Structure formats: C-alpha cells, structure tokens
C-alpha cells in the first residue's frame, strides 16, 4: 500500500463520471447557430454589422466583468453567455445605430438585465431584450431608422414599388402596416416582398432579416439538442395559426380565369409573418434562452404559444409593427408562475395516490 499513500485519492458523491458538456460548450453551440445569420448580416449591412456586433459583445462582456468585480465574485466571462447576449442584442438593433447607443444597450442588457439579479441563471428577463427595450424607450427614431441592405440598388430598389430614400427604408412589417392604413392593399405588397424576407435582402434589424440563415442556425441547434424543439414549434405554430385565422376569416376568394386564390385587404399572408421581423430569431434564439423559459415540457408549450400569440396580437391588433420584444418579456415574467403551475408528476403518480 506504500504506493497508494502517495496518490491523491478523492471522494465525492456519485455519479463519478460526467458527460463532456459545460455551460461554455452550450453557449458556443448557440454562437455556431447564430453564425449563418451573422454572415447574412455582414453580407447585407457590411461595416454596420461588424461594428454593431463588436460593440455589443464588448460592452456586454465589459459590463459583466465590472459587475463581478463590484460584487467581488469570480469572473464569469469564460462561460460565453455575455457574448451570446451581445450578439443577440446586436441582431435586434437597427444596422445604422451609432456605436455609443449600442454600447449603452449592452451595458443595460447585462448590468440591469442580468447582473442585478445575481448573474447567469438568476435573471428573470432575457438580458438582450431588456437592453433593447431600454433603447427603444429612450432612443426614439434612432431605433426605427432602417438601412437598406448594401446589395439593394438604391436607384432601382426592387423591394419597394415607390420612390424612396436611398439610405433608409421601412421594415416589411412596418411597411405592411402603413400600406394597409393607406389602403394600398396588402396583397400587392406580399408577393413582392416575401422572397426578400426569405433571403434577407430587406430593411430590418441587423440579424433578423434573413429567414434562411436563421432557420439554418436553428436547425443546427435542434439537431444538437441545444434548444428544446417545443419552443420553436410552439412559437411558430401559434403565430402561424393566429395569422392564418386572421387571413382566412377576413379574406375573399379572388377569381381569375386561370386560377383562384385567397386575398385579404387587411392582413398579410400568414407565412409572411413567420419569415419577417424577428419571428425566427425569437423562435430559435431568444425564446429558447433556457434561463428565462419554463423547465417542464407543459410549461414550455404554454410559454412558446404565449410568445407566438402575444407577438401576433401586437403585430396585428396593436400599434407597433413588431411585438417580439414585449411578448418575450411578458412571458419571461410569467415563467416562474408557469413553472409553479406545471409541476411534473413522477412516473409512478403522486405518492399515496392510485398507481
């Protein structure tokens, strides 16, 4: 046993092995999932995208580091969660936003959205959405000025049928609202712009425009099981059903000699709601933030469907063109309640109850 004594033998509770998985590896997975959308953002918005993402990530990281120093806690930058928050925040901002505004947003997101609650895992609200809400409330028109993608020819913009400012443009969602109000008709608008929302060649927040890129990243996270499938299924399903119901109930059948189709003067086509705005970003990357969503399967369904319906209510009935931000924050607030309400029952039923 002489040799044994020299060894460092440890004891700890079982199990004594663990899966090669860490908070950092989960966060890196999310960053990989965000990569296609980042590529699309850089392609369409060029230097704006690079600046905005860099500033947001840097300010989020700095805020986390400073808060940890103030609280005399260990540095937690290594888990990369601040980087994820920074990227998502940047993705939800208008491309031409000045760098100082993004910096303020990043500091608020991490400082107020996360660290005051006690850091990663303790925050009630999605930090990126907290930062964005703060900016939307305080920066006014800066937050609603949309740059045309660099790939769009400013002289002959194919995305808009009217003459427009060479630099900026309304988002498809905002435009659809105005169009409906001005009785231009939602139908004409739909067909022109739907294709652009799929590729991302439209105005909008930095990382939300390209549906293809977002779906690709989301698919990766689903395959890796980094995100729970119930969230995107619930969000997109509920939003689609809501939009489809509005469209079908309001719609009229248009007959032409060759074909017939359904058209609505008040509502855009349901698929358009899924590909435009922050819907996909929300379904795959924002609503799936594990910290601020319920733990149980039933709870996740309630949360996801809630996010989908609230988003659509704000988009279709409310004044704002986009509702993802408020829908997420509202459902985040409801999450502790949902968790309490949707307790899981053990396999063998409640103790003392019938099997």
């Amino acid at each position, binding site marked *: *046993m002489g*040799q*044994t004594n020299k*060894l*460092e*033998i*440890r*004891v*700890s*509770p*079982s*199990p*004594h*092995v*663990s*899966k*090669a*998985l*860490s*908070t950092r*590896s*989960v966060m890196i997975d999310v960053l990989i999932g965000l990569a296609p959308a980042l590529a699309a953002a850089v392609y369409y918005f060029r230097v704006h995208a690079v600046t905005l993402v860099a500033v947001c990530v840097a300010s989020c990281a700095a805020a986390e580091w400073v808060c940890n120093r103030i609280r005399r806690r260990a540095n*937690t930058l290594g*888990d990369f*969660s601040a980087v994820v928050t920074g990227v998502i925040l940047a993705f939800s901002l208008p491309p031409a936003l000045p760098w100082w505004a993004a910096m303020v947003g990043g500091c608020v997101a991490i400082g107020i959205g996360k660290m005051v609650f006690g*850091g*990663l*895992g*303790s925050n009630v609200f999605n930090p990126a959405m907290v930062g964005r809400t703060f900016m939307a409330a305080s920066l006014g028109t800066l937050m609603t000025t949309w740059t045309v993608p660099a790939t769009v020819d400013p002289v002959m913009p194919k995305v808009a049928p009217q003459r427009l400012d060479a630099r900026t443009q309304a988002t498809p969602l905002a435009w659809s609202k105005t169009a409906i109000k001005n009785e231009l008709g939602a139908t004409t608008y739909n067909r022109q712009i739907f294709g652009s929302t799929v590729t991302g060649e439209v105005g909008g927040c930095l990382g939300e425009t390209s549906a293809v890129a977002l779906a690709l990243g989301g698919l990766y996270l689903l395959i890796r099981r980094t995100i*729970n499938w119930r969230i995107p299924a619930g969000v997109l399903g509920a939003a689609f059903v809501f939009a489809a119901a509005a469209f079908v109930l309001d719609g009229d059948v248009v007959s032409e000699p060759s074909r017939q189709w359904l058209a609505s003067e008040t509502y855009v086509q349901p698929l358009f709601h899924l590909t435009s705005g922050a819907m996909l970003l929300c379904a795959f990357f924002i609503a799936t933030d*594990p*910290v601020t*969503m319920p*733990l*149980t*399967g039933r709870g996740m369904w309630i949360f996801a469907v809630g996010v989908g319906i609230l988003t659509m209510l704000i988009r279709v009935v409310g004044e704002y063109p986009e509702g993802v931000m408020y829908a997420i924050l509202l459902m985040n607030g409801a999450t502790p309640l949902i968790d309490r309400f949707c*307790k*899981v*029952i*053990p*396999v*063998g*039923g*409640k*103790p*003392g*109850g*019938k*099997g």
Partner: protein
Amino acid sequence: MAILSGNRTFSGGAHPPGQKGRSCEISIQPGPPAKEVAVLLCQHIGVICEPVVKKGDAIAAGQKVGDSQAFVSAPVHSPVAGKVKEVALRSHPVLGRAMAVVIVADPPDERPAAVDAGRFADFDTEKYEQAAILDASREAGLVGMGGAGFPTRVKLDPKGTPKETLIVNACECEPYITCDYRLMLEWTDQVLAGVRLAKKASGCKRVIIGIEDNKPRAIEVMRDVCRAGADGIEVMPLQTKYPQGGERQLIRAVLGKSVPTGGIPPMIGVVVINVATAAALADAVVFRRPLTHRVVTVTGGGIDRPGNYYVPLGITAGELIEFCGGLNSQARKVVMGGPMMGLAIADMKTPLTKTSGAITVLTQQEIGSAKFAQRQTACIRCGRCLEVCPERLNPTRIAHAVKNNLLDVAQDYYMSACIECGCCSYVCPANIELTGYIKTGKIFVARQKKRMPE
C-alpha cells in the same frame, strides 16, 4: 443503434460510455486468500444485525456471526474458519463507520475454489419445497446483490398481494461492471437453478429475464438454456440505456407498468431479483452455502490487471486491489460499485460487502476535468436533468431547495421518489452535484423524522 433495435425500455435515462471492454472477456478467477476478514453487521436494508459470537470464539467456515430477530433483516456469516479477533468499528461504504466481526483465518484460508460449473447440471426444482427455499434464503443471509441489498426472503415472501411475474434483472446497466455478465456466461446452470427456485418460492407464474442488448452473448446463452428447460422462462432483450437495471425502470420496460411512487414492486404483483442473487439462492438451497463469497469486478483505468474475481466477503478493498496489481499512478478515485451509483471510498481498509459488485478505480480522464476539479457553475435551467430523470422528477428544483435548506419544498417536488441513479448530475452542463444534494436532503428528512442518528 440501440434506439433503432425496437427493444423495449423506459423513458428518460442517459447513455454513459459502457467501458465494459476492460473486463468483459476475462473469466471469473478465484480472488485473494483471506488472512483476516471484517464481516460488517450491516450489509442490507433493514434492521442491523447483532453479533452472535464474541471475542476469542472459534468459528467454522460459513458459521453465522450476526443475526437479528426482525423480519426485514438478513444474517451475516464468516467466509473462513478461524478465531474472532474483535467486534469493532470498521469503515462502511454508506454509514461511514459501522460494527463488524473481525475474524483471523485459522488455518490460513486457501484461495476460494473455482466453482465447478457442472454441479447444477442435474438440478431439479421438484426436490425442494417452497418453505424450504424460503428458509434457506433467510438462513443463508441472502440480500439483493445488485446494490440495494434488500433481504431476499422478504422479497420472495408469497403472502400478501399474489405475485404474478418474476423479473430477473440481468441488465447490468451500470458502466464498467461485468460480474453479472460473466455469471450468465460461466455459471449459466446455477443462475437458471436460482431463477427456478425463486419462481417456486414466490409463487410467480411468469418469468422474464431482462438483458440489455449490448450483451448479445448473454442473451444467446440464456435463451439456449431457457429453451431447453421449456418451463416458460422468457429472455427479453432491452435497450442499452442507463438505468435500465433500476428495478422500477426494468418493470416499466418489461411490463409497461409503473410501480406507484413510494411503493414497492409486489404492490403490482412483481418480484425482481438480480442474477447474482439467483446464483446465490441456488447455492444456498442446494448446497446449504451461506452468502459469504461473491463475484466482484475490479476495473477502471486506475487498475492495470482488471478482472472478475470470486472473493470472500470481508476482505478489504485494498487487499483486492493489491491482488489486481495495485493502483497505478493514474488512479484518482476508488469507487465501491460502478461510476454512476457507486460510493467513493477514502479508506482502503473498507471491507467488501454482499452488495459490492465492483471496485472501479477511475482516472482523472475518466472522471472528466470539470468533475474532477469539482467546478460547479450556476444552474442555467436548461432542463436536461428533467429530460433524463427516469422517475420524471425536477432534480434542479429539488437540489436547489435542499441547498437553500427548504426541505418542505424539496419534499413537495417528490424528493423521496428519487432513485439516486445519478443521470441528472451526469448530464448537468453546470456540473452541479444534483444527486448529491438530493441524497443529502433525504438524510436531513430522515434525521428530522428521527429515523437516522445524527
């Protein structure tokens, strides 16, 4: 692959690497001779035995050294002839320190004889009465050898709810361990004899042997002998998934039925016994041999000569490890049992008990760097622990309630239903010792109810 096999299983669970390759092809060898044994008086669930011998007594091999009058208990026996040196405290893998009868072998024990595989070839169940089987299971001190150590006599008791189905637990889902696998391959007749005796004793009509599908040879061998016997013993391959060999998960997989939370299998007419217990039952009934030896797998990256050994119970973990070449320089953790549910020991003089199916010596690489450093980070509420929990509990909620000393909340989330399989801790990306907290919480509750000493 296992998922596509169509074999049955339960919901939840994890897939820790099997790691059985080290020892699964090594046949059962006689273990080290016993110079001195410490027979712990508590090797089972239930009332702890009182010593029935005293210091200086001469003991015969197989003599009873501890017993209890209680129904839920099992006597303990000496594996060697010799003299009682003392009745004193020894390290216990669960209790810390516990009383043990220490016996010095005299004459010096020889290495336990390799078991003659042919001795159960002409076994006939008809020769044994139901009452005789039950008595023998009690007298031999049989307990569930899969890990929990529930007294077999109590489990087989035919009174109460009629028993319909006997399930033989041959899953061996715990990584690294191969002792049950070797038993099935090498002592096939003995295992089968034990299964038939258990069937007769319990009054069950149906017998199903559940084996994980990562052991095709065991499935084949058991199928062959069962077909030859033609008395309706069925072999059922099950998906390879941890904890497939958990009693409640096994029943769920085999019968599709759930044992009520807080209940026991007899409530739904099921008895589950482990293959090692079945083999011991055959020995106890046919040859009147008490449970004093068992097959122990010694394995893990910290051991240079892994294998499966038939060892006298009461020798220390250190003796058996030395017999296998000692710990190598990579050894970092010595675990009694497998890596998922086994207990890490600090004292190499901890005696082996009836439930010690393995000694697993892990290296830092096998443990994983974060686990080795015991680096726990904040829960990110990812819900992976809920997904893998085979009992469908909320491990993170329970563990954090215990951490914050909210025992009522922990109980409200069905803490007592936890089977301590370790799946939640295994998958946790934050590396939180969820199972450890839950175990601690259970001990706190037991202390509050004065069921356990401080």
